[in-house]
C-alpha cells in the first residue's frame, strides 16, 4: 500500500495564514471606514436651487429650532420690481409695507425705495425661517433672484440631514466644504 501523500498545507499553516488574512481584511476595512469618514468631513449639506420645489419642509424639518435653511438674494439678477411677487401677497390691498400686504410670515424681507420705480429687497436672516414662500413668488412671476441656501454658520451638518430625508425635490446634496454654497448667477439659472 502506498504511503499517504503529505498535504500541501498543514493545519497549523492553514490557521496561521487564515488569521493573517483575517487581520489584513480587518485592517483594510478599518482604513476604508476611516477614509470614508475623512471624505464625509470634507462635505456639507446644501440646497440645489435648480431642484428646490419650495415645499416648505426646510422650515419644519430641520433639527434646529429655527431652520439653518435661509432665503438668500442674488441682487445681480433681481429686477428691483415695484410689484415684487416675493414680497407682496398675491392680491395685496396696496403696494406698501403694511403687514397685511406682505407675503413673508415673519416679516423677514425689508423693502427700501431706491429710485422710481425701483425697490431693493433685503433678507433679515435672523427672522427668516426658510419657508420659501417668497422664493416661490419670485420664481413664479419674477427673475428668480430669491432662493434657499443652507447657512453654514447655523447648520450642524448632521450625517443624515432631517430635511434631506423629506425634501420633495431631492434638492439636498453634499457639496465640498470649501465651496459650500450653490449660488445663482443668471435668471432661473444656477
Amino acid at each position: 500500500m502506498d504511503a499517504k501523500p503529505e498535504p500541501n498545507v498543514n493545519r497549523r499553516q492553514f490557521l496561521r495564514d487564515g488569521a493573517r488574512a483575517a487581520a489584513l481584511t480587518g485592517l483594510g476595512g478599518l482604513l476604508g471606514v476611516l477614509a470614508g469618514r475623512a471624505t464625509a468631513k470634507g462635505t456639507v449639506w446644501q440646497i440645489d436651487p435648480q431642484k428646490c420645489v419650495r415645499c416648505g419642509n426646510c422650515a419644519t424639518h430641520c433639527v434646529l429650532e429655527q431652520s439653518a435653511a435661509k432665503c438668500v438674494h442674488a441682487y445681480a439678477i433681481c429686477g428691483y420690481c415695484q410689484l415684487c411677487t416675493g414680497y407682496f401677497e398675491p392680491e395685496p390691498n396696496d403696494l406698501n409695507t403694511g403687514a397685511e400686504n406682505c407675503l413673508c410670515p415673519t416679516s423677514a424681507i425689508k423693502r427700501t425705495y431706491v429710485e422710481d420705480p425701483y425697490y431693493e429687497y433685503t433678507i433679515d436672516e435672523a427672522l427668516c425661517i426658510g419657508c420659501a414662500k417668497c422664493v416661490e413668488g419670485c420664481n413664479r412671476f419674477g427673475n428668480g433672484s430669491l432662493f434657499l441656501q443652507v447657512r453654514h454658520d447655523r447648520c450642524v451638518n448632521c450625517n443624515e440631514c432631517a430635511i434631506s430625508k423629506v425634501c420633495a425635490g431631492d434638492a439636498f446634496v453634499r457639496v465640498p466644504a470649501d465651496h459650500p454654497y450653490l449660488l445663482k448667477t443668471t435668471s432661473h439659472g444656477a
Partner: protein
Amino acid sequence: MRNRKQTITRRQFIKEGAQDAGILALGSAAFATSAAARAASAGNDVNPFAYDVGRLRKTDPKLIQYEQVGQFPSPYPEPHRIAAGPEGRFYIAAGNYVSVADRDGARVSEIALPGPARCVAVAGDGTVYAGVRDHVEVFDRKGQRTAVWESLGKRAWLSGLAVGEKEVFAADSGNRVVLRYDKSGKLVGRIGEKNKERNVPGLILPSPYLDVKLAQDGLLRVNNTGRHRVEAYTAQGDLEFFWGKPSMAIDGFCGCCNPVGLALLPDGRYVTCEKGLPRVKIYSKEGVFECVVAGPESFSENWQKCSPSDCTTGGLDAAVDAAGRIYILDVVEANVRIMAKKKEAS
C-alpha cells in the same frame, strides 16, 4: 450508529429555522410599514407656507366676453409675434420664417430669414417688415427681399414692429428704445429713452417683450412692462399719456413685467397680453379695464411654462382682424386661437 458530531437534530434545525424566518419576516414587515408611513407622511404633508395663486388661475366667467371659434398651429415652432395685414391675412414670426396665413390659418406663403424671426409688421401695400435680433429686413408683397437695414449692434433685441404711411417703428428691448425709421431704413429718431427735460421716465424692461403699435390717432402705443403700463408717444418722442397699474387683480398687470404684447381693435380699444398669469384682456381707449378675452385657465401649458422654473420664455401676442376678431398667438403651445365676441359667435 449516531453521528457524534451532529449537535442538532433535524427537527430542531427546522424549528429554529422557522423561528428565525418568522422573526426576519416580522422585522421586514415592520421596516416596510415604517418606511411606507414615512413616505406617505412626507407626501401628504400640506405645506403651511404655500404660495396660493389658485384663485387667480380662474377668471370670473362674467368677465369673459369672448369665445374661441377656431384654432390653428403655428407654421413653425418658437413663434414670437403675430401681425395682421391686408386682404385678411396674418403674418407669424416663428422659427426662421415669417409665415403668411389666411384668416382660417391656411398657409399662403412664407419668407425665409437669416435667423430667428422676432417680430413683423405689414404695410397697407403688402410690404413686409421683419425683425431678426439686430436688424430689420424688408420684403415686397411677393416675398422678395428688397432691403436689409443696418445692424443695431450686439445689444439689440428687436421684439416689436409697427409701420405707418411714411415711417417704421422698431421696438428694441436690448437697448430699451423704440427706433423711428423712414421707409428707406434711415434712422430718424429714438423714442422712450429716459429724458428728464422732456418728462420721459424711460423704459423698464426686465424681460425682452417691448412692443409698439401705431394707433389711428397717430400716436404710438408702447408697453413699458417694468412699470406695468401702456404709454402713448408722438412720433417725435413726446410722452402724451399712459395708463395701467401693477396688480395681480384682473384689472392690473401682474408679475415683474407686463403686458408683453399689444394689439388695437378697430375702434381704438386695446388688447393686452400677459405672461406669468397668461391672460388676454380688453381695455377702453382711456385704459379702463372692460373684459377678458381669455384667462389663465385657457393657457394651461403657458402657465406651466412659467412655473416653477422659468418665466422668461412664456408669453402671448395678439392681432386683430377688420371684423374685430382677436387672434391670440400662444408662444408656448405654438398655436393661434381665434376669438370672437360671444354674441357674434352664437
